[in-house]
């Protein structure tokens, strides 16, 4: 028994120590610092109670950033999942249908590999690459528009407050679709082929089979995808910081960037921690909403 205790202690203490120092204690301190006006330079600070949170409620820049995260939270999963489902179904069931059954499209493997490319790049590279893509004179997007004679559509994408945020959204969708094409594709492989064949015999169109058969049978996978994409949407820091740095005129700001700037730009560590706490509750409420929604789903079934 003593050997067992020693074993448990030896195995559990190092991970707990590392975890406690670098993860648990910062999280705990964050709530504490959020109640102070600490500016990081001196050890002195005062507890200001809920002042930081009161300030947060009236901070237009914070709400502006939060609104962008909200839009991302709504649109990023929807756009990515729809596009992923569409492309995956094109690959898996878009091919020939004959007596032997429904086939995948020719070259399905090649498409999957190509679509997965962006997933291999790290987020910093994706950011730098797209920043160059959007460049007004030297970028590929305006270059292409000019090359095909659509000069009127060429514009300084990232320089215009009307477009900058949507440009970021496009990059996020571009970077993520490939993974979900592969994920949904794998899930579709497990759907029995004869279901599709039966539906096709009954005269169902391809759109109908996608909506009525594929989507319901993939529902669990789609939920998982939604969770991953929601996490990306609540964050969004890296891509936004690299591509637009929140600009122009804060038109593509996100909460993570607001926190980073407040802390490491303005040295308002107390207020930045308050933003962090707000972000935590945002994550929490999204998680609760999601669990609610899926729970009801399960009960109904």
């Amino acid at each position, binding site marked *: 028994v003593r050997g067992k205790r020693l074993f448990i202690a030896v195995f559990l203490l190092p991970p707990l120590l590392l975890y406690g120092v*670098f993860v648990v204690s*910062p999280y705990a301190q964050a709530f504490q610092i959020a109640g102070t006006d600490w500016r990081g330079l001196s050890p002195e600070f005062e507890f200001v109670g809920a002042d930081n949170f009161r300030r947060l409620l009236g901070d237009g820049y914070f709400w502006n950033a939060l609104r962008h995260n909200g839009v991302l939270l709504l649109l990023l999963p929807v756009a990515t999942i729809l596009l992923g489902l569409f492309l995956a179904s094109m690959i898996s*069931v878009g091919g020939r249908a004959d007596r032997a059954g429904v086939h995948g499209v020719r070259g399905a493997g090649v498409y999957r590999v190509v679509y997965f490319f962006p997933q291999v790049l790290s987020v910093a590279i994706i950011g730098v690459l797209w920043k160059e893509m959007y460049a007004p004179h030297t970028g590929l997007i305006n270059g292409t528009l000019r090359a095909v004679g659509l000069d009127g559509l060429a514009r300084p994408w990232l320089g*215009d407050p009307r477009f900058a945020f949507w440009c970021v959204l496009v990059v996020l969708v571009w970077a993520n679709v490939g993974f979900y094409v592969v994920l949904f594709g794998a899930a579709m492989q497990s759907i029995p082929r004869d279901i599709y064949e039966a539906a096709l015999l009954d005269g169902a169109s391809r759109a109908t089979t996608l909506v009525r058969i594929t989507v319901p049978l993939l529902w669990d996978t789609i939920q998982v995808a939604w969770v991953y994409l929601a996490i990306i949407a609540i964050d969004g820091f890296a891509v936004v910081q690299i591509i637009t740095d929140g600009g122009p005129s804060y038109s593509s700001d996100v909460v993570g960037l607001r926190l980073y700037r407040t802390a490491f730009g303005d040295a308002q560590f107390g207020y930045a921690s308050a933003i962090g706490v707000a972000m935590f509750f945002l994550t929490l409420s999204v998680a609760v909403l999601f669990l609610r929604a899926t729970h009801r789903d399960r009960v109904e079934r």
Partner: protein
Amino acid sequence: VSRPGRLCSHVFLVVWALLTTLPLVWAVLGSFKSDDEILTDPWRLPARLRWENWARAWNEAHIGRYFLNSAIVVTGALTLTMLLGAMAGYVLARYRFRGHRVVYFAFAGGMMFPVFLALVPLFFVVRNLGLLGTLPGLTLVYAAYSLPFTVFFLTAFFRTLPSSVAEAAMVDGCGHFALFFRVMLPMARPGLVSVGIFNFLFQWNQYVLPIVLLQGAGAELCGLVDRKLNQLSPQPPAAHFGDEIEVVDEAVVPAIFEAEAERDHNIADRLVVQHHEPGASKRTAVCEHHHGGFTGRIEWRVIPAVERLCHGNEGGRLRHPDRNVFAIHGRGRPSNTTPRQLRCGDVVCYAGKRKTRRMRRARVRSSQYQPLT
């Protein structure tokens, strides 16, 4: 599916394949282009394969050093994560002890918290340990933040392994430690591999942690390849309020800077030229805040020539590929103002060429600038 239908799906698939590959191919081609070729038509192909660009990236930009840093941190962190994660996961899955549930939920609960919440205190924890701006510091932090998912996953995985093997080993006189390292760990290989791949992607893709934790002394040496990449790309000029902008280029003439400060969408404050010497060989214009106490949004007006200056940034000096040099000195900032970078969307205005004296306006577009005359 009919023949036109198949064709139709191929069309969609090919379009997305092009959208995916074109940017990547373009970037690879760009690595062989000269500055001139990059700055003209984006569809232009490089005249020849300039491998010297790659040599420059290696020798001058030290990309190898940063790559090595990334590799060191991720290798170390991944090893640590897998070892500690497997140890904790195994104990939590196979042993009952007091505080078992607390430990388990402490680890699993870590997945609920956004990293951003910990950012500020983490910075000070790492600094107080003397690990700020060091690779070991970053390694430990990566490993710590990978633990929640790793422990959660591996606990579940170790539970699925048959207990009969462990019991047989125990009967044969195998100790707890030997049982773990010689029996359970090899059995858990599939689980370790999948969670290892996940952790590798998580750690390799880190962006906010290195940005925050590689500050301060020694940080330059420790830049990771990802972070460095962003710094190497064309940067917007770091012009601040009160900064003196020296126009060395003779083609660009008396530059009058006028900036309008916007507070909550309403033009409130104005920034005007404080001082400007038309006859001097070096022309300077100092921008100063008019009223002070600025908090709102700013729009600047900048010379169209400035739009082109921001390709390459050498320690405070901004150099245009045409070798028009614009030096930016950080002379004493006016108090009450927040130093601010010239950013995209900023509108800058200047009096045109020497003779015309016509006011021109330009909007600063992203890091590349486009005139809006």
